[in-house]
């Protein structure tokens, strides 16, 4: 009976959906990058209509020892939990960082299990200078590679742009 077979197969497919969701939540996923805050590293071309898609590694990405300076991470915005931001880590836990304008102090010490994130496009970025250091619990994943469009394959994500030499000695 073909209909019975179809039912059986759709049921089997259904049982694999939680497995795929678990992998996407905890191991790896893809994400679309919108906006200009990470230019020139991501969404490099101003004119182009298509956005970059990146491959996201999620396994153990909330652990502080896996988050290094100059990694690009995606995280839930502390200001609005429904938004996901993409920024570059500029300081890790126990670092001291020189801040920019909206932040009320000139130097900040980053607490345990927090990171300091900033966009590469310094002047068009809502980042740690607005909301302070970020708890690693909010990190969603680490951007490893650009996978789409093909013309952007091999883009070097570790290339650090943005503000340089912002680490300082502890106050």
């Amino acid at each position, binding site marked *: 009976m073909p209909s019975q077979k179809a039912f059986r197969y759709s049921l089997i497919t259904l*049982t*694999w959906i*939680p*497995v795929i*969701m*678990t992998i996407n*939540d905890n191991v790896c996923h893809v994400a679309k990058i919108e906006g200009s805050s990470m230019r020139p590293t991501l969404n490099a071309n101003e004119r182009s209509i298509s956005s970059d898609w990146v491959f996201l590694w999620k396994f153990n990405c*909330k*652990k502080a020892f896996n988050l290094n300076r100059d990694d690009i991470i995606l995280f*839930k*915005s*502390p*200001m*609005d*939990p*429904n938004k996901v931001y993409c920024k570059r880590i500029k300081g890790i836990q126990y670092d001291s960082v020189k801040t920019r304008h909206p932040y009320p102090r000139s130097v900040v010490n980053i*607490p*345990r*299990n*927090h990171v300091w994130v900033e966009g590469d496009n310094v002047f068009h970025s809502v980042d740690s200078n607005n*909301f302070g250091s970020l*708890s*690693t*619990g*909010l990190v969603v994943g680490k951007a490893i590679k650009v996978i789409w469009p093909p013309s952007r394959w091999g883009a070097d994500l570790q290339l650090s742009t943005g503000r340089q030499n912002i680490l300082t000695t502890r106050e």
Partner: protein
Amino acid sequence: MNSTIQAWLKTGSYAVRAVCFVHIIHTYVYEFTETRGESMLPTLAASNDYVHAFKKYKDGKNCKMGDCIVAVKPSDPDHRVCKRITGMPGDVILVDPSMGTQLDRLPSDVDEIDEDENFNTYIKVPKGHVWVTGDNLSHSLDSRTYNSLPMGLIRGKIVAANDFNQPFWSGSKGNFWGFRKIGNSFVNED
């Protein structure tokens, strides 16, 4: 030989699917889990209490003042805390009259605590954050130490609890294993 391998593969695939199904339910729908620690006395006991948490309140959706929530600890993502929301975005909080704030103080400054200052330390809860405290204020590590909590760290809302020290059926109270609902404790005095 071949059939044994096949049987193992089949069992393994069933196990993987079942574990992932439970994980997804725990993340997005409902979780039943143990709590430990003195910070929520007398609402929750320090040990052997199990709580029912609804995950549709994840990320602080529809959470209100006075709700009991489970959240990831901001200073340690491996640990989860259970606290009560005592301040919503935009509220102005008197941090702690009994000991003041430790947020911008070094341990070496302890001698210089000015008692009057403790009554004058206010914080405005930023957008997208909540202020959380334990019900047992004298034994709780909460927003008074790690500042307001981003809503993105909230994992769910606690709606009920079981106490497995109680008998399975306590007839007089009419509940199983000390089952009790945990509601909103906020009283608006205006």
